[in-house]
């Protein structure tokens, strides 16, 4: 099964009067259960590619099929629901909601799905245990270290059992050792839950965790 498929995706950014081509007609596909790494120097187009695959950005031209669905045809409400159910996101800056506790952050995607309270509590407890943060459930994000925050983000991304996870430089804000821990956790989750993982990095150490590597350079796949 194919998780994501891109066909001749072009992305132009418009800055005042000039336009910058970030993606140059990219075609690729990611198989379910895979761990894919987008490798390339800064400015090569990795983030742009990930955003399009995660349905949080739209291509200038080309086709995006996520689990066979052409997302360009969806309304905002449908697309939001689709994102909520189909993918998880992990960001370089963790992006936890500061007014929510650890468990509330993890619970949030389930709230959007209107999962019952008891179900939510059980699933949040389970996932926090598997990322090793069960004793931090009531902490606020600002009371955690960077590595712990990224674990919360991983738990939040996984709680909906998404088809795939998009992670843009997940270790770039962490020290080497903590970053390794995060990558090991993601690999473990892929093994346990079969979750497809697509991540971007320019760190060769981090790319070692991938099963397939896609090299990106100046908006092209090489």
């Amino acid at each position, binding site marked *: 099964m194919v998780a994501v498929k891109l066909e001749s995706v072009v992305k132009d950014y418009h800055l005042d009067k000039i336009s910058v081509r970030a993606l140059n007609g990219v075609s690729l596909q990611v198989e379910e259960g895979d761990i894919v790494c987008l490798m390339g120097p800064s400015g090569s187009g990795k*983030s*742009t590619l990930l*955003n399009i695959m*995660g349905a*949080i*950005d739209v291509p200038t031209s080309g086709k995006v099929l996520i689990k066979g669905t052409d997302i360009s045809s969806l309304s*905002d*409400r449908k697309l*939001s*629901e689709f*994102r*909520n*159910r189909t993918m998880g*996101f992990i*960001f*370089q*800056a963790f*992006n936890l*909601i*500061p*007014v*929510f506790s650890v468990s509330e952050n993890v619970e*949030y*995607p389930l*709230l*959007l*799905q209107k999962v019952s309270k008891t179900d939510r509590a059980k699933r949040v407890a389970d996932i926090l245990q598997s990322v090793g943060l069960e004793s931090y459930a009531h902490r606020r994000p600002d009371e955690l270290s960077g590595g712990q925050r990224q674990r919360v983000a991983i738990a*939040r991304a996984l709680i909906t059992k998404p088809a795939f996870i998009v992670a*843009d*430089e997940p270790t770039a804000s962490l020290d080497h050792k903590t970053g390794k821990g995060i990558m090991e956790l993601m690999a473990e989750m892929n093994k346990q839950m079969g979750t497809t993982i697509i991540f971007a990095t320019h760190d060769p150490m981090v790319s070692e965790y991938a099963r397939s590597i896609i090299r990106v350079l100046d908006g092209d796949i090489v």
Partner: protein
Amino acid sequence: MNSLNLAFRNIFRNKRRSFFTLMSIVIGIAGLVVFQGFVRNQMVQFRASVVQGGIGHLQVAASPDYYLKGEYNPFDYILPDSEKLISTLRKVEYVKSVIPALGFTGLAASSEKTISLLFKAYPVADPLFANRERATEAQLKEARQRPLLIASLSTGNQLSADVPNGVVVGERAAKILNVKLGDVITVLGMVSGGGMNGTDMKIVGIYKGAVTAEKYFAYISYDFAKSFIGVEGPSTLLLTLDNIDNTNKVAGLVKEIKDPNTSTLATRKWTELAVYYRQVNTMYTTFLTVIRAILLLVILFVIVNTQTMSVMERMREIGTLRALGTSRIQVVLTFIFEGGLLGAIGSIFGVLLGFILSWIFNLMGGVPMVYDGEMVRNYFTPDIMSMLPNIWPVILFALIASAGPARKAGKLQIADTLRFI
């Protein structure tokens, strides 16, 4: 539900900013409440003095036409068999007293000038009504519940039986006529059945009142008026009630009275007759409306500013929520709720503070003011029952103010907000 929870949390997040936003609403609304309390206290007192000033709580006349033409032609509207009607009216529930009155137009001339005056005539023999100087302490106490002839004399005395042809004129009329206390004016008036009559009237008092009243209204004795214009009875009856709040009820009861001599009795409530009261009331109401409008405008700007900053600060967070599956509309709602909550919390605490401040000011003795040469203490008595208009418009304006920034938050492109810088 989600949006509301998030909105609530976010208010307590930037504590400093929320505090200042809320404070500007709280202080504004509290000030408004204190002012409303002051106005209300004034108006309650004013209302009492107006009713006692010769209008009564309710007036009864022979026909509604009287109020259009009666003062120029009272003869067609004289209440026949008034003694019987008076005793019937005295038996109506809530009625405390019934006083006959006459009104007519006349030309008043001094040695220098002639002007047109509206004469209002009341019985002066009754010490409880007009001749207060001769009343005992107990009678005076009761008199406070009853109409006085004229609210505030600047010089001279009230009308009394001692000077049957006495007249009390307003300061403006006295000035125009160039007369002073003790002077005599000549009055020319129409009499019943046609023709004219002339008489001398002695100025026993000069009063200060509403600008228009001062120029046109003059007060004389009821008996003197009857004989001067040649009528047998009153043109109106003034009713005073046990409680001003029963005015409407009594008006209804009076309309049901079947008087064999007149087809229908016309009634006028004090509010319909008290021009000056209405003017002051309108002035205060306008004043309050303007203050409220300014306040709402300030609140609008404060909340637009707060919410705009809130959206700008939380761009990345909005993007994150959207990536997690929050729809545009939910994001918009979060920010609208947030503004609405600020408005609700601000206005409710504002009302609360207003009541607390009023209470404190009253404990400190209110505001001393000189009124009619007397020291009067004015207190702050805001009405809890009329606080809703201080709350819901604030919430409404807060919601409106939040709509712009909220819409902007909803329109953000997710990828743009998440870009790592």
